[in-house]
């Protein structure tokens, strides 16, 4: 926990941060549990300061608001990060997909070079990555992750299966690629898990390419996590893992 940024909890709870610092602090907040607790308490405190300023609302406000809600569409709930690749699979490529094809090509090329630089990439894997290149899944997120200043590579193998992870604590995200996973029966699927302090959380289903590689999957909430793991689950995925871990990649501490 950075002592200096931590003192901003008060200014944040009082909405006294300029817009740019608010954004920075909120990024920090996602990674700092102690700050989160303090912010919640201080926001509950400022809420009471606000309540103490209560005034009867102007007459007519109620009627205007109630008349207006009939014309305002409500937002849906915030969903857990689901596989962006699934979203793409369900329909024809969008214009966005075309647009980002180039970006992902650059990103995957960078990933290949970087992994090759570590001396751990095989020819087959390079082929796999080229294969993955054809997929537009999570293109932008992958690109952003690869260019994060603190991007770190991790890799693990288990028999024929290998998993490669590029993770960024700053971005609180990681991209996962694997090769060597066998084809799954129609009623099964591969699922990626973020193993964090409170156990495994689904990071979505993995799509298997022809050559046995999975398309890059982006997992969120990884800054505090220990590892990413893959299991085989019933089609559609499970809320909690039920199958054996097929490959597990430790994240940098």
């Amino acid at each position, binding site marked *: 926990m950075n002592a200096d940024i931590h*003192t*901003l*909890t*008060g*200014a944040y*709870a*009082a*909405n*006294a*941060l*300029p*817009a740019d610092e608010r954004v920075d602090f909120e990024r920090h907040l996602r990674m700092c549990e102690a700050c989160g607790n303090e912010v*919640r*308490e*201080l*926001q*509950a*405190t*400022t*809420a*009471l*300061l*606000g*309540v*103490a*300023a*209560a*005034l*009867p*609302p*102007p007459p007519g*406000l*109620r009627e*205007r*608001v*109630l008349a*207006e*809600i*009939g014309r*305002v*569409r*409500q*937002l*849906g*709930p*915030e969903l857990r990060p689901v596989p962006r690749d699934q979203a793409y699979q369900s329909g024809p490529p969008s214009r966005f997909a075309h647009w980002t094809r180039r970006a992902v090509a650059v990103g995957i090329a960078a990933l290949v070079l970087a992994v090759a630089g570590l001396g751990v990439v095989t020819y087959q894997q390079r082929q796999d990555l080229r294969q993955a290149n054809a997929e537009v899944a999570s293109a932008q997120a992958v690109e952003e992750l690869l260019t994060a200043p603190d991007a770190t590579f991790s890799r693990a193998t288990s028999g024929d299966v290998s998993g490669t992870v590029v993770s960024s604590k700053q971005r609180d995200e990681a991209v996962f690629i694997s090769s060597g996973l066998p084809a799954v029966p129609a009623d099964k699927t591969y699922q990626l898990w973020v193993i964090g302090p409170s156990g495994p959380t689904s990071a979505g289903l993995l799509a298997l390419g022809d050559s046995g590689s999975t398309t890059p999957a982006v997992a969120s909430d990884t800054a505090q996590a220990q590892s990413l793991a893959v299991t085989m689950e019933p089609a559609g995925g499970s809320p909690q893992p039920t199958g054996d871990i097929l490959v597990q990649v430790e994240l940098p501490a």
Partner: protein
Amino acid sequence: MRVPPGGDPARSGEFALAADESLEGLLGQVAKGDQRAFELVFERVAAPVYGIVRRVLRDPAQSEEIAQEVMLEIWRQAARFSVERGSALSWVMTIAHRRAVDRVRTEAAASARSARALWQDNRTEYDQVAEQVEVRLEQERVRRCLETLTELQRESVDLAYYGGYTYREVGELLGVALGTVKTRLRDGLIRMRDCLGVAR
């Protein structure tokens, strides 16, 4: 805090009793599009929302406009409220205060605030509020707790929260270093938290 329904007792009979009458429970209903639950939410939070917006903006016309936006935002975003991130009242008041502050920080509004505020009748509606015992008690509690702060803490909290100034502006106004403002704001709010007995 619970503000009694807006002066029309006959009306409350129309509401089917919500399964969970806490603000959190009501927001859950609102998330599913329940307009009657939203009316109940409105009755509970409209006075605090309008009050804090008015305190920051001063200008009644702008305050009404922003309060309306805030209430619609609550309707729109109800599904995004999560108890994990704090109470429903906190959530509502954060939206309200932030909206007011964002309005202040657009330049056009800033000049309107200084110019028009001078022309506004500064009479407040505190007399009406005084009838609402709970609000009175809350005001008294907050006032007493504010008195336990050091002068610099109190001024920082007051200018930042009620004044809607950034901590940089507060530093400028009080003639103290930015680091000092940051810590005074935090220390002041922590002391308020303990004094008000906000759940840890």
